[in-house]
């Protein structure tokens, strides 16, 4: 019984893949996987319907890029500061604030984005609408911040104190110690933090659904409304006929999303595992 539960994770993961696949088969037969993945037009309700994922893929890409630009520098720098420079008291406060931020549901980030970020974006860049890939990306960057800070901070914290002391005792400043010894030693953990952040950013649903605008065109820059993979699924699954063509296309889209995040997480995990082995001396 206990051993069986151990295997449950594999069973569920496999079940997800299988159910996505079987519910998507109709779209593979009637539309074709490659035609969906590389199709430029998303007109699911016109006749004949066109199911191109490119608008969603490009939108997801822009949102993710903006998100990473916000959270990676800010997150990694904060992690270095918290791990290497902050006093213990400040560290405690900072960590509980970060934890608090991580506990806020993503739909609340969406709400605050609607209330503040969307009007700000519209005014600041003089746009027709503030519902853009940019606003969604910024909010996703903020939402991903706690993930990156805490994993990167953990990675630096896991570097043995001996190394830190060894470097300081050689007459290095804390900064020299940080960038010459600690950050390189923790680099794989920091990389994994970025990858996990990336995975979250690609898969985050509510924020893009609420903020990205969900327009149909392929965005060539982030300051326009865009649709995303998760946003499209969440926005349309409620309105389609179960078992119909559109329905199965959305499952195909889910499968694409699943595969992409799976690969990203796999990369992060293998890097983390290497790091874990390294300090198990």
């Amino acid at each position: 019984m206990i051993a069986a539960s151990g295997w449950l994770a594999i069973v569920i993961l496999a079940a997800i893949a299988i159910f996505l696949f079987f519910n998507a088969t109709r779209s593979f037969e009637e539309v074709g996987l490659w035609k969906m993945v590389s199709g430029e037009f998303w007109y699911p309700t016109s006749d004949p319907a066109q199911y191109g994922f490119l608008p969603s893929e490009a939108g997801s890409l822009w949102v993710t890029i903006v998100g990473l630009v916000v959270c990676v520098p800010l997150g990694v720098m904060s992690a270095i500061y918290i791990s290497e420079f902050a006093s213990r008291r400040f560290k405690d406060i900072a960590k509980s604030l970060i934890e608090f931020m991580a506990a806020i549901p993503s739909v609340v980030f969406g709400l605050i984005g609607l209330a503040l970020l969307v009007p700000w974006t519209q005014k600041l860049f003089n746009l027709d609408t503030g519902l853009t890939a940019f606003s969604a990306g910024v909010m996703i960057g903020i939402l991903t911040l706690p993930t990156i800070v805490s994993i990167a901070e953990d990675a630096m914290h896991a570097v043995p104190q001996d190394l830190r002391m060894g470097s300081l005792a050689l007459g290095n400043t804390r900064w020299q110690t940080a960038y010459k010894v600690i950050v390189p030693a923790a680099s794989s953990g920091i990389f994994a933090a970025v990858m996990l952040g990336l995975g979250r950013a690609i898969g985050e649903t509510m924020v893009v659904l609420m903020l990205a605008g969900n327009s149909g065109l392929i965005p060539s820059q982030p300051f326009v409304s865009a649709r995303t993979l998760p946003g499209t699924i969440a926005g349309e699954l409620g309105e389609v006929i179960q078992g119909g063509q559109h329905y199965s296309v959305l499952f195909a889209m889910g499968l694409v999303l699943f595969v992409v995040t799976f690969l990203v997480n796999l990369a992060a995990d293998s890097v983390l595992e290497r790091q874990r082995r390294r300090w198990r001396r």
Partner: protein
Amino acid sequence: MRTSRSAARIRSARIAETVAKSILGTATMIALGIAVFLIGYLAYRGMGYVSWEFLTQAPRKAMTEGGIYPVIVGTVWLTAWTAFFALPFGIMAGIYLAEYSPRNRANRIIRIAIANMAGVPSIVYGLFGVALFVLQMGLGRSIIAGSLTLACMTLPVIITVTEEALRQIPRDLRQASLALGATKLRTIRKVVLPAAAPGIVTGSILALSRAAGETAPILFTAVAFFAPIADSPFDETMALPYHMYIMATSATKPAPQMVWGTAFVLVAGVSLINVVVASWRARQRRKIRW
């Protein structure tokens, strides 16, 4: 000779350090400032609407008046059922990984699977829930289908916190029990699990409180725009995150208390649980010291 040359070098190293420190410090202040701002802004917009009436009454007049009592109840039910499904399996799987599993290839695959489950986007869980629980198993849109979906999503977290809590227990304790002739299962049940319980309970509650705030997985598996308090777990329900989402994005101008009051209740609830659990944990820690 030596001192003068190295003094200049040390001075420039110190300047570099000061510059780096202030840049990193600024980044940190921005990150923490965002966190503080989010908390403050939510409280500023939402706190005023929270009253006894708001918490204990049903919405009235097409959700422009009244409270969110059924919505709160819906979220509580969803979370409770999620716990019911996820906890036993999650804890057992954690025990398996920490106590039984050999360090081999199969095990490595289990670990990869768990890590990856945690990274599957929530909307994909939503799709999975629709396909398996709502349609295949014929549960329809219901509390059960929604909480099964949420349970799948919460499972990897519960497994991980259980495993970590168990690994914190010193080896001596296990060996002491085994040396007394206790079986492995008995050792786990009587010695290891009780010692690890605070960690498991804390981690699980935190994981469940996250589940309570999820929207995408229940979007198509459990919730309705309006539903009375469910009579049975096979009914549709309302839920805080969804209620807030639908109010915030509805075409008609929403009643502010429905949006911001709900958001505040959701966040305050989640963080209240976090604080209570964290302080309980700290007290337990002080009691048991390795």
